[in-house]
């Protein structure tokens, strides 16, 4: 029987369908008997759904500045050639 710690360690792989079939069944066996791990896996799944829709805007990149620097760099390089 898998321990809770093992199930918690494998939780993402289980949700990603990224475990072998025998291991999947061992995890399911554990989940049938363990309400804590069922809750843990459910919370992880909710987390995945919520975070998938998160907006990650660190800072909007300054495309204009990056473009200008890029132009400058290309000009420098072509002078060296």
């Amino acid at each position, binding site marked *: 029987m898998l*321990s809770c710690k093992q199930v918690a360690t494998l939780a*993402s792989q289980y949700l990603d369908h990224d475990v072998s079939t025998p291991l999947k069944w061992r995890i399911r066996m554990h989940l049938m008997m363990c309400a804590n791990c069922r809750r843990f896996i459910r919370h992880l799944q909710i*987390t995945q759904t919520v*975070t998938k829709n998160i907006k990650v805007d660190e800072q909007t*990149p300054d*495309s204009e500045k990056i473009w200008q620097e890029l132009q400058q*760099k*290309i000009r420098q390089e072509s002078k060296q050639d």
Partner: protein
Amino acid sequence: MDESLLVTQLIAGDDKAFRYVIGQYQTLMLSIARAIVGDVFADEVVQESWVSVYKNIAGFERRASLKTWLLTIVSNKAKARLRKESRMVSLEQLDGETPGSYLDSANFKRDGHWQNPVSHWNNESPEALLEEKQLQACIAKTLLLLPPTQKAAFILRDIEQHSFDEICSLLDVSAANVRVLVHRARLTLMQVIDRYQETGSC
């Protein structure tokens, strides 16, 4: 914007199109560069990548998507830089253990059972949780603070929906490590929701 049209404009040297692509991908490219070479060289690596994109766009064969092509360029540039700096930083150094996480041994009894019951959440509806503006801000903030390799692996997997194989080659990490990285990142973000459920803030 239609990708095929965009590529045609890029090849024609349309600088507006180029600025648009920079706006779209600069942040993601920086995350990948940081994950591979670290903060110090990341900006330079991304700039080199743009130069390379600018020079080579005419040869872009459209077999892969523009995004995959861009990410492969930045990944290759970053790997080359890492070799040049010859500071092979191990994954452990880049992404140390996170004490206090769910997988901390302190959370388990000797026999591997939970030390304390896993807490109950009052709100288990993802839709409702997505409505919580404060929670959104907390998650976004925590995501930015993740160690760089974890952050890039998580963004590529859960937000950008890349396959593990692609992520392994983009970030230059093993198949086993990439799974560990994504799992750790998810657990850290789950902790944010956990705290929010308990205290209503973070």
